[in-house]
């Protein structure tokens, strides 16, 4: 396929310099028409680069691990339960991993993702490879991520086709009974909340 490539292997139809110039020109036109404020764009970019990220979702998971009543509320109404911890901006459905069920989140039509809670998705989540294959061969995809589940474990795939966003509540790893809620949150990864990883026991890290 023709087109430019950057150092990350992304495909671009046009060189970075042209893309950068077009975006700059677009912003300039919208400023001129008093439709956007550059400072507002700065703030939005800054928020996603600094404040909003997987660490927010990890706090939700850790709370659910230590507080069974919160876990129940989270599974019944994720949107309301994350608001208890000060997070919002998303209609959230939380799906729970158990010894017999593993959940996997994808968006085959675009790249829907609970970014108000766990930040922007990684490039692989938005890739054609993941979007096309996660629904059809989830076990093969999971093995590529290093998660090899026996056939006795049901894999539930959640294709985010509407305005609800999905978050996986991973299983709490064994050997973490003495850890504090904050220490547990440290163990939780972005990939575990998407469902392409399990949370490893601390000794295995």
């Amino acid at each position: 396929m023709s087109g430019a490539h950057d150092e990350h292997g992304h495909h671009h139809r046009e060189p970075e310099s042209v893309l950068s110039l077009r975006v700059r020109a677009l912003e300039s036109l919208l400023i001129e028409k008093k439709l956007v404020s550059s400072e507002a764009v700065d703030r939005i970019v800054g928020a996603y680069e600094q404040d909003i990220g997987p660490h927010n979702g990890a706090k939700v998971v850790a709370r659910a691990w230590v507080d069974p009543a919160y876990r129940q509320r989270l599974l019944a109404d994720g949107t309301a339960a994350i608001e208890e911890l000060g997070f919002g901006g998303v209609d959230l459905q939380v799906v729970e991993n158990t010894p017999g069920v593993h959940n996997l989140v994808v968006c085959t039509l675009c790249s829907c993702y609970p970014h108000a809670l766990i930040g922007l998705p990684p490039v692989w989540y938005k890739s054609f490879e993941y979007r096309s294959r996660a629904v059809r061969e989830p076990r093969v995809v999971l093995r590529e991520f290093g998660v090899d589940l026996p056939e006795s474990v049901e894999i539930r795939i959640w294709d985010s086709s509407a305005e609800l966003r999905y978050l996986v509540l991973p299983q709490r790893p064994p050997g973490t009974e003495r850890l504090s809620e904050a220490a547990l949150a440290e163990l939780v990864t972005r990939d575990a909340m998407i469902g392409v990883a399990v949370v490893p026991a601390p000794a295995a890290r």
Partner: protein
Amino acid sequence: MNGIHDMGGMHGFGRVEREKDEPVFHAAWEGRVFGLTRAYRHLFNIDESRHAIERMAPIDYLGSSYYERWLDGNVRLLVEKGVITREELERRMAQIAGGSDPAPPHSDPKLLERMLRATRERPHYRQPGPPPRFATGVRVLTRNDAPVGHTRLPRYARGKHGVIDRVHGSYIFPDTNAHGQGQQPHALYSVRFDAAELWGGSAEPCAPVHLDLWERYLKPAAPARSTS
């Protein structure tokens, strides 16, 4: 529409490649595209935005990065809505390349406050509508239309049997909202499909797929003959 964006189940794509220590944005312009899109989301709705990206020529869609597709969709919509023209954008690119920007970034506290207020508002996709026709556990059949416009029923799940897993409530209907035909909110369900129903003999064992589907995508189905 039977678009290139509708990728669920396609063959031909390889391993999912991961990047170590991936930054939030890979270039400054990606962040600007993201921030701009959030900042002017009052100009068009989410369904119009998605459909603008879906209308890219397939070869361009496949050849572009994620934020390149966003940029293409944004420009397409801004032009269609009469906010900017393509000539205006080309001219502005030439001006900036030549060293002069007629509207460089500047401080506008009133506009900033208005925009930040708008970004803090939670989008209200859930809107009152008629009561749901289907209850949890009911077997349904998805429609097998090939609509020319925007839809959120993926191709791989057309004409398939599923079971209502959850009744979500009434939500804005993307198929009309993307085309200026109103929000037409109605019942949205989580529908569970057995892997074998979707992929036949090549299905993996015990790997059901759940989709969030609007009632207008669904028809009642006869109860299943077996318990497979």
